[in-house]
């Protein structure tokens, strides 16, 4: 009979309408700012730099090797290595800038980093009115503690710790007489960085 398909379809719509009042399967909307959702552990947004210890800048794992700068497909990383008074490289970045207006969150920098110094953040509320400097993150904004890294990617961070501990053991076995390095200080997880 003409119109049966139409009526069947309307029945489906009615079922969904009524269901949205009592069935969570049919009411899937999340009231976002009031009701935050839980991000999956693998979620990635923009990169940040991991530091060990208490000092954000001195503790950076980054050695300014510029591998990520070269591999970054949209070329959003800008590094100037630091040098001491005599002009020798100190293996620290003097400038580490990341333009998040260019960054496409592909995490290739994380994959190519041999020092596990750069990782993907989960903080996404970074809207700003200044599209140039507001979206340009310097090393001060990018440096986040190892404890923060553990709080957002626990599984991955545990694996990274194992790799780093292994590398450390090997280095110590090589240089036996050297004094054992102090273990990384554990800090309580700090709250997500404020919006820039």
């Amino acid at each position: 009979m003409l119109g049966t398909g139409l009526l069947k379809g309307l029945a489906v719509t009615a079922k969904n309408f009524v269901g949205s009042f009592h069935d969570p399967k049919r009411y899937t909307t999340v009231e976002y700012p009031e009701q935050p959702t839980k991000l999956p552990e693998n979620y990635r947004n923009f990169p940040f730099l991991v530091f060990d210890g208490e000092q954000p800048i001195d503790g950076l794992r980054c050695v300014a090797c510029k591998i990520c700068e070269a591999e970054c497909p949209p070329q959003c990383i800008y590094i100037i290595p630091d040098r001491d008074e005599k002009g020798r490289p100190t293996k620290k970045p003097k400038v580490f800038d990341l333009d998040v207006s260019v960054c496409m969150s592909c995490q290739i920098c994380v994959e190519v980093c041999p020092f596990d110094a750069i990782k993907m953040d989960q903080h996404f509320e970074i809207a700003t009115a200044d599209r140039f400097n507001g979206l340009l993150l310097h090393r001060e904004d990018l440096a986040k503690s190892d404890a923060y890294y553990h709080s957002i990617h626990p599984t991955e961070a545990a694996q990274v710790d194992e790799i780093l501990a292994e590398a450390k053991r090997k280095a110590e076995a090589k240089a036996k007489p050297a004094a054992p390095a102090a273990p990384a200080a554990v800090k309580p997880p700090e709250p997500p960085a404020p919006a820039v």
Partner: protein
Amino acid sequence: METPEQIQARLAARFPAAAVTLVPNPAPAGMAALLVDAAHARQIAFFLREDPELKLDYCSNATGIDWPEKEIVETTRSTLADPAGGPPRTIEQKTKRIQPGYLEVVYHLYSMARKHGPVILRVRTGNRTDQVTLPSLTPVWRSCEFQEREIYDLFGITFEGHPDLRRLLMWDEFTGHPMRKDYVEPDDYEWEPTPHEEVLEKAKRHYAAPEKEGTP
């Protein structure tokens, strides 16, 4: 399916005037391509489509490649017997020659009827400047219509016999062919907070003193 060598032999028998050569492919996927001369390209294409053995009725991919002029240094080694009776000497001779540039169109042909493929067909232009006309294969495979327009747009190869040869992706007033290796992009510049080498060079040209804010 027949190997490229067999197809080449059959084409040579069918079109004695046509120059059909094999272009080897050293990659592990290695499938040699058939390089045909522009004058016979369309006849050969029709033959490949209609031949009951091959029945290559589907042209999957048509694309251009730019091979600019390049200098090739060839080293030839020749062994000379020493007239004094010593061990033979090896003489290396270096010859420089300039390989002329050309543009190339590659067609990847498959058969939907017989479910085999690919046969790779290549056609080359005489040079990169004035002899850039090739026969269009759109009359043979309709799927070349937009792809040949794209090649015309981005590489600057003119296809003779194409029903509607206009620029596809760039606008009509655009000059130049962006996919050529020697294409120079226009000197437009927008300030960026993270200047890399090339952008920094541009920045220096556009501003007497590079802006201090952002990066030192």
